[in-house]
């Protein structure tokens, strides 16, 4: 798959409209006709009929040119660029002899160079597009023609053809799935190319067509599809199939879209509905909108100013010309009559104006844009090449997908980060546990000797080899047969909703809906309690090598309110037991009183675990007698059947049995952060970058991660939580937070500590934090006591202290003057209010005063909104980093989007500007590459403007001596080559290679990043300084030679005052001065810099001598009339004395200023350089004060084991949704795994859970993967025939599909469009709930239709609340990937290879 690299905007500012035009053109000649295509009619196997409509063929063309059109079209495009047009205009001016002050080639050579470089680049791009087009168009597919399967190229596939697809083949066009080799017309597709999601999706054909089966039937199939016209909505399709006088509704569930890959399905047949450019893939292949850097914008402004300046100079010189022509020129006419069209001095002045515009145009040289592009390209390559941003686990190097944003990486102030997959690995590891008051599992000590990892295989052949645990005492006690340990792990192996797959004997794969559960079950597995398989009514485990089958009586499912889940099982001996695991807060209340002592111990352990940032769960059990069970089961059944308040009644029933439990212990799971995340965050925040975490996760999880990645610390003054549900409450909470901040910082400021009791704050962060504050205040250790002890010189916690910075400038408003570290946690529903127009500023000012902000439960759209709000209000550079489709909108709206590659598909990467595979690379990207890029670009621009002003302004001064006649100072060849040869390479080399401090230093001293954020290195002020320096240089370069030469003679007496000598002298002096200047500017002299600087000087002299040689003169005497000037001039000592003098006068002040600046007001980078220099000399570390900042970080990184007393945070952070217990007990999800195993060994990724999760909730009721009648019926034939057992709910569903459209189904499908139109932007919070209700309504209806299979405790009933919960849980993902919002899944042009 080739992803077309973005093309710098500069080159095609108008590509977008053009491209659109093009696409219209692509749609063929019938664009006029198609204009009115309101619906599409396709008749299967009837090419003649379909040809009437002239639908687009399946041939795609993404290329822009062919050999004939390349030159005109490409030139046309290039001249739409303002700069190019400007130079074309100049060229035309130069063709007017009265105006032409320069030879035509002085403009045409650079212009041609620029145009041809661009053209070559375009041609190469287009060539590859042609190649990939050809490759795609020439792929083979099998088409059913006249009843026979024939091989056809993709491009020859027509709308209305029936094609056959085989496993692992790409879908050639948008197909209506007709039949499949799988039962129920199911087939599985992978849509990674389309939406970036790597999981598999299920598609199902309409039941009537799925029965068609073989080729002959399909060949005679003549159904007609009437559907919507081509559009770009990936998740939506509306159509109707008319066949044999019946109507069948078609939805997206019946469609196979181009770009998908068929998986785990032997073969399927499809009817081509949309082909080629009409396919959804192609319709989505819009270019992403170009991003411009702030430097770009500044540069454009400056260029405009310079144009203004140019016009001013032109006017001044034209006025001068008028005066001169009137006073002198008119009298001089006997020697030089006016040009024929000129009859008075005014007209002459008019012409002079244009002439001067031509010769002064070099203040804005065309090479500026090219050079900037080249430099950025170089920087991008350095990013791609950086080994330290290469992740060997994923074999992925960092990639700069956009080449135009590099320097903005050096100016980032806000980072918006996704959590899952970005900060965390989404891997949970069973880290510690407490069993019966005994804690096990010492954390790994990174400093001390690494404890040996336990090897479970000798003990347990079924162990998962990837499982890590380091404490062998636990294993010992299991081996010894400690009853508590056994019960503990038995609980873990039973109480869950995990599914298992056993590919071969002993090779178990667990499919857990949340990684937490997976970790727990895996832990149990390794400690000898292996969960093997389950059926709706049983759980089979292998306990210490002995197979045991439990009867599963009930699953008391998890939900957010309950914060626990239980199972009730009957063991082989017939004893009934309830196993429960849940959050400590809820579970500890429900224990039997006799557990008090154990509870205290466990509670201590829980505190410990929480302090380490682990997620904790408490485990408990309860033995039930047969009577108890019977009684409860009865009440439970009642509750289940209840028509009203079912949910409450269920909860009450659960509550009733989950009482008087016996405490077993607690588990601690580590939500594994990505490598180096806390360090990265610490470094980035030292660099004054604010990091916001925007996550769809729950508040607890998000806060927990916030702590473990050191965004939130216990040293923080206060953490505010905003969770109001109404505008008022949110406003209140925000206001209160602000008051607190001002109050606290004022009290800190004034040195008066009021010792406020913060407890009454409604928004104050919950339980543990406060306890810890008090505990610490007395203990006197560490920080967090700003509140408690009088802080006059506030003894800040030592470790992460930035190098002492000067006190912040006096605040412009109160909120800017916040001391102390605050954090804000805001919930999605509150955020919706906070982002409303009138709250925006309030929210921004509060949030920006905080050091860390965590937004949880946010939708993808809200992520983008948050970014936009900050962009709007703070005028700072933002960066968004994420890995999933739900981050796309945020990535696109931030100034810079970074995609984490390799985790959740490629959607985020496709939308991103930079991609790499580890969050920690961000610090290198920003602090090293971004910083360097910014520095280099700034230095480049400063120097570039300087050198062109120095070069051009000489003409201005000369104007006063040459009668304002627009005579140039230099040889025309010098003017032509100055920018492209003599001075381009050294500055390019500097722009590409310069480093002020080495990369390790910029990571060690994150403060070095600040100049970029404050935009200090190149701004309007710096620009004017450069310009002034350039003008100063031009004055020196003109007047010194002028004064010297006008009187000087050679030693042979020949005067040196002739024009050619003057021209050569000035040019040489200019080249030398700018070379010396670049030498001063270059801070990092590599071989390349040397070669460039010396090479440029050398090339200047050699080219000059060549141009002034007699050979050329003899061929073109009129073009090379400087013959001999170089040698006769440069042999004169006086010329060299002049050049030396001019150079000295130009350079001395610059040198003096630079020295003073470094000496008196050194920047941090100077200091670091100096330190380095001294260190090199003395070989002894200096500058410890600055280094302290870094060294402090060390303790941050290993702080996890530190003895800090942690604030206890409830670790109940199940990422999973409720409702799965029901699914398990109903047995619906059983079939797939066994089925799949029977047929395809490689189907491990088609997990039922993924399928289930990703599926649009709307479709759950009609397109659930059909389940086998039981886990024990793997044979396919059996399944297809076994619709009969009505006791199983899912088969009923299958049956309902078989009926042609009935009222019920019709109603359901009607809900699809209505739902789709509920666009989230308006009602972010309301929409999911609304749809949830709609769905569950549908579910309930369908549930009502069929007879209820009452024998299983769960049954096929999903409660309203359950669905809501489920929906809310995956709302984030669902809206990104599946939501009907048109812009939510923007696609890149993607080619399938």
């Amino acid at each position: 798959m080739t992803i077309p690299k973005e093309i710098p905007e500069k080159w095609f500012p108008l590509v977008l409209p053009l491209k659109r035009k093009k696409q219209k053109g692509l749609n063929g000649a019938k664009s006029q006709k198609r204009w009115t295509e309101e619906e599409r009619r396709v008749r299967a196997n009837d090419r003649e009929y379909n040809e009437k409509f002239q639908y687009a063929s399946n041939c795609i063309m993404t290329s822009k040119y062919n050999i004939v059109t390349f030159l005109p079209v490409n030139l046309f495009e290039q001249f739409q660029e303002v700069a190019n047009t400007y130079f074309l205009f100049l060229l035309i001016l130069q063709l007017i002899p009265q105006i032409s002050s320069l030879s035509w080639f002085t403009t045409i050579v650079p212009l041609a160079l620029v145009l041809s470089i661009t053209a070559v680049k375009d041609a190469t791009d287009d060539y590859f597009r042609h190649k990939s087009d050809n490759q795609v168009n020439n792929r083979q597919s099998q088409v059913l023609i006249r009843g026979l399967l024939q091989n056809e190229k993709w491009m020859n596939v027509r709308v209305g053809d029936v094609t056959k697809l085989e496993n692992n083949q790409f879908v050639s066009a948008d197909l209506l799935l007709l039949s499949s080799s799988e039962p129920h017309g199911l087939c599985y597709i992978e849509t990674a190319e389309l939406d970036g999601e790597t999981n598999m999706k299920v598609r199902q054909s309409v039941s009537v067509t799925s029965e068609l089966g073989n080729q002959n039937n399909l060949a005679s199939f003549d159904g007609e599809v009437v559907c919507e016209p081509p559009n770009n909505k990936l998740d939506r399709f509306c159509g109707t199939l008319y066949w044999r006088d019946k109507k069948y509704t078609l939805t997206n569930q019946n469609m196979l879209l181009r770009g998908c890959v068929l998986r785990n399905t032997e073969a399927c047949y499809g009817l081509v509905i949309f082909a080629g450019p009409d396919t959804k893939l192609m319709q989505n292949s819009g270019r992403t909108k170009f991003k411009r850097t702030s430097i770009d914008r500044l540069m454009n402004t400056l260029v405009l100013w310079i144009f203004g300046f140019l016009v001013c100079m032109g006017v001044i010189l034209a006025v001068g010309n008028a005066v001169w022509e009137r006073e002198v020129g008119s009298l001089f006419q006997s020697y030089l009559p006016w040009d024929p069209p000129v009859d008075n001095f005014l007209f002459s002045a008019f012409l002079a104006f244009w002439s001067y515009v031509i010769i002064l145009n070099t203040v804005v040289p065309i090479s500026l844009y090219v050079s900037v592009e080249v430099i950025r390209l170089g920087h991008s390559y350095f990013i791609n090449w950086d080994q330290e941003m290469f992740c060997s686990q994923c074999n992925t190097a960092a990639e700069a997908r956009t080449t135009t944003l590099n320097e903005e990486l050096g100016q980032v102030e806000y980072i918006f980060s996704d959590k899952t997959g970005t900060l965390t690995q989404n891997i949970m590891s069973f880290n510690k546990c407490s069993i019966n008051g005994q804690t096990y599992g010492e954390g790994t000590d990174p400093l001390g000797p690494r404890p040996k990892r336990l090897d479970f295989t000798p003990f347990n052949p079924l162990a998962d080899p990837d499982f890590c645990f380091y404490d062998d005492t636990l294993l010992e006690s299991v081996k010894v047969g400690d009853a508590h340990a056994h019960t503990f792990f038995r609980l873990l192996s039973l109480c869950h909703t995990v599914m298992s797959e056993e590919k071969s004997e002993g090779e178990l794969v667990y499919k857990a809906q949340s990684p937490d559960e997976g970790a727990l079950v895996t832990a149990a597995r390794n400690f000898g309690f292996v969960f093997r398989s389950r059926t709706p009514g049983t759980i089979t485990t292998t306990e210490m090598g002995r197979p045991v089958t439990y009867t599963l009586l009930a699953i008391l499912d998890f939900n957010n309110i309950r914060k626990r889940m239980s199972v009730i099982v009957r063991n082989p001996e017939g004893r009934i037991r309830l196993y429960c695991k849940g959050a400590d807060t809820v579970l500890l209340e429900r224990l039997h009183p006799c557990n008090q002592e154990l509870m205290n111990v466990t509670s201590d352990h829980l505190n410990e675990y929480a302090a380490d940032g682990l997620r904790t769960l408490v485990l408990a059990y309860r033995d039930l007698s047969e009577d108890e069970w019977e009684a409860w089961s009865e009440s439970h059944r009642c509750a289940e059947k209840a028509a009203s308040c079912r949910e409450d009644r269920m909860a009450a029933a659960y509550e009733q049995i989950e009482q008087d439990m016996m405490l077993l212990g607690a588990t601690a799971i580590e939500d594994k952060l990505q490598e180096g995340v806390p360090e990265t965050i610490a470094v980035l925040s030292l660099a004054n970058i604010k990091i916001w975490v925007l996550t769809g996760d729950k508040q607890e999880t998000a806060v927990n991660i916030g702590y473990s990645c050191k965004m939130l610390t216990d040293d923080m003054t206060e953490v505010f939580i905003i969770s109001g549900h109404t505008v008022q409450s949110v406003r209140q909470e925000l206001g209160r937070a602000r008051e607190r901040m001002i109050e606290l910082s004022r009290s800190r400021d004034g040195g008066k500590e009021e010792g406020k009791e913060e407890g009454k704050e409604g928004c104050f962060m919950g339980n543990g934090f406060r306890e810890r504050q008090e505990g610490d205040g007395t203990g006197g250790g560490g920080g967090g006591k700003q509140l408690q002890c009088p802080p006059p010189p506030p003894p800040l916690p030592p470790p992460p202290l930035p190098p002492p910075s000067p006190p912040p400038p006096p605040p412009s408003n109160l909120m800017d003057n916040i001391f102390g570290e605050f954090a804000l946690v805001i919930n999605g529903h509150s955020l919706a209010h906070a982002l409303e127009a009138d709250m925006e500023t309030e929210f921004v000012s509060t949030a920006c005063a905080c050091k860390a902000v965590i937004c949880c439960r946010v939708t993808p759209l809200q992520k983008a909104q948050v970014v936009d709000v900050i962009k709007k209000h703070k005028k700072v550079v933002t960066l968004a980093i994420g890995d999933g489709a739900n981050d796309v909108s945020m990535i696109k709206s931030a100034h810079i989007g970074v995609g984490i590659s390799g985790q959740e598909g490629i959607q985020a990467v496709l939308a991103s500007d930079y991609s790499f595979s580890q969050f920690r690379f961000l610090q290198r990207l920003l602090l090293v590459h971004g910083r360097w890029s910014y520095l280099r670009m700034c230095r480049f621009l400063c120097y570039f403007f300087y050198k062109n002003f120095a070069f051009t302004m000489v003409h201005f001064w000369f104007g006063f001596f040459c009668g304002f006649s627009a005579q140039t100072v230099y040889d025309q060849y010098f003017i032509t080559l100055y920018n492209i040869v003599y001075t381009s390479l050294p500055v390019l080399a500097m722009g590409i290679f310069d480093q002020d401090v080495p990369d390790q230093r910029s990571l060690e001293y994150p403060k070095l990043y600040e100049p970029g954020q404050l935009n200090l290195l190149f701004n309007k002020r710096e620009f004017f300084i450069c310009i002034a320096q350039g003008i100063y240089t031009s004055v020196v370069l003109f007047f010194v030679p002028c004064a010297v030469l006008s009187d000087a003679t050679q030693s042979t007496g020949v005067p040196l005052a002739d024009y050619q000598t003057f021209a050569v002298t000035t040019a040489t002096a200019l080249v030398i001065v700018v070379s010396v200047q670049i030498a001063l500017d270059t801070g990092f002299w590599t071989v390349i810099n040397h070669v460039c600087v010396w090479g440029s000087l050398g090339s200047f002299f050699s080219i000059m001598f060549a141009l002034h040689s007699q050979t050329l003169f003899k061929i073109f005497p009129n073009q090379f009339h400087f013959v001999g000037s170089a040698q006769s001039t440069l042999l004169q000592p006086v010329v060299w004395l002049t050049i030396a003098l001019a150079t000295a006068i130009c350079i001395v002040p610059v040198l003096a200023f630079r020295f003073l600046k470094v000496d008196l007001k050194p920047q941090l980078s100077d200091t670091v350089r100096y330190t380095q220099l001294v260190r090199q000399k003395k070989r002894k570390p200096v500058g410890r004060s600055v280094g302290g900042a870094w060294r402090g970080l060390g303790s941050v990184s290993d702080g996890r084991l530190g003895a800090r007393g942690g604030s206890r945070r409830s670790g109940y952070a199940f990422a999973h949704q409720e409702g799965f217990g029901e699914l398990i007990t109903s047995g619906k999800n059983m079939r797939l795994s066994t089925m799949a195993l029977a047929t395809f060994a490689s189907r491990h990724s088609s997990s039922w859970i993924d399928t289930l999760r990703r599926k649009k909730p709307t479709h759950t009721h009609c397109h659930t993967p059909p389940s086998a009648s039981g886990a024990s019926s793997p044979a396919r034939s059996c399944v297809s025939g076994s619709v009969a057992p009505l006791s199983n709910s899912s088969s009923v569903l299958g049956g309902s599909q078989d009926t042609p459209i009935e009222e019920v189904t019709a109603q359901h499908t009607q809900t699809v469009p209505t739902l789709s139109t509920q666009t989230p932007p308006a009602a972010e919070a309301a929409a999911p709930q609304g749809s949830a209700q709609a769905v569950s309504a549908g579910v309930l209806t369908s549930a009502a239709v069929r007879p209820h299979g009452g024998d299983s405790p769960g049954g096929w009933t999903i409660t309203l609340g359950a669905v809501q919960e489920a929906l809310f849980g995956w709302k984030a993902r669902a809206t990104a990937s599946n939501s009907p919002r048109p812009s939510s899944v923007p696609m890149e042009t993607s080619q399938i290879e």
Partner: protein
Amino acid sequence: ERFKAGKSGPSARRPDNSAFKQQRLPAWSPMLTANTVLPFFYFMALSCMLLGVWLLLTVQSTQELKLDYTKAGSCDECFEIHNSASCRLFQGDVFFYYGLQNFHQNLRRYMDSRDDGQMVGRTTNLKNPSTYCEPFIKDQKGLPIAPCGAVANSVFNDSFTLSYHGGSSGPAVPVPLLRQGITWYTDKNIKYRNPKDGNMTLAQVFQGTAQPRYWQKPAYELDPRDPANNGFINDDLIVWMREAAFPNFKKLYGVLYRAKKPFIKGLPAGNYSVDVSYNFPVQHFRGRKQVVLTTVTWFGGQNHFLPIAYLITSCLTLLVAVVLTVAWCKFGKNGRNMEE
């Protein structure tokens, strides 16, 4: 493609570990420290000072005599001016210049108005001059002008005879002036060539061309005494054709021929007179004309600007150096600011 083909395994796409790609090329990072900058400034001040002094001394050894004779054209009688500026011997080579002021040889159209193809002796260009020469391509009769163009047309055509009146009132001795070898070597030998056509004389070659409008005689008769100094390779023409960069300029007219007494050592002190054949009108555009006599040294004629500029630069550099030293001692010594 960026990555080497043929590699495989988990690190197949690992970027090359080359110093270039990893931006670790060995490099020199100079820094402006007091140790380097301050000595540099002092050194610079000192060397400028020495150079300035040396140049000044050198310049002092040259002599120059300027004589404005613009007004000489307007009076009928001989124009007399007594200049007793220098009574010393003009030692060594003495150069005789004519100078023009306010004559703009550097106007763009003026400078362009010439045909180097014609002047290099191309016969095609001789009869068919380039359009660059506008408006002096053809005369009224339509004959091509040779040499064409405004530059050649306006050639300076005053001539001078310098006479030496001895120490006292003896008979006037004409001062011998070398009127050749006063051009650049490349001009005389490469840039300007006479057109050749078989064995034809110059006059025959120039047949069919017209002389420039302001010329009194055709190009091939410029120097009646030396036939090799005629046509486009006439030294005076070549000197004129080398356009001056500024409106005030001087051009070499001749060099003292030092073969005979009393001019072997140079121009002896005494009375001199210059006979001017006054042809070149300058007053209508407020121009001035002068003759200049000067001696030269290794670095050319009398040129006070350069040594003085060096001296001033040296002083300023010294001043800056002192200021920097003070600032450094007082505020930034030993990187004091760096330590913060």
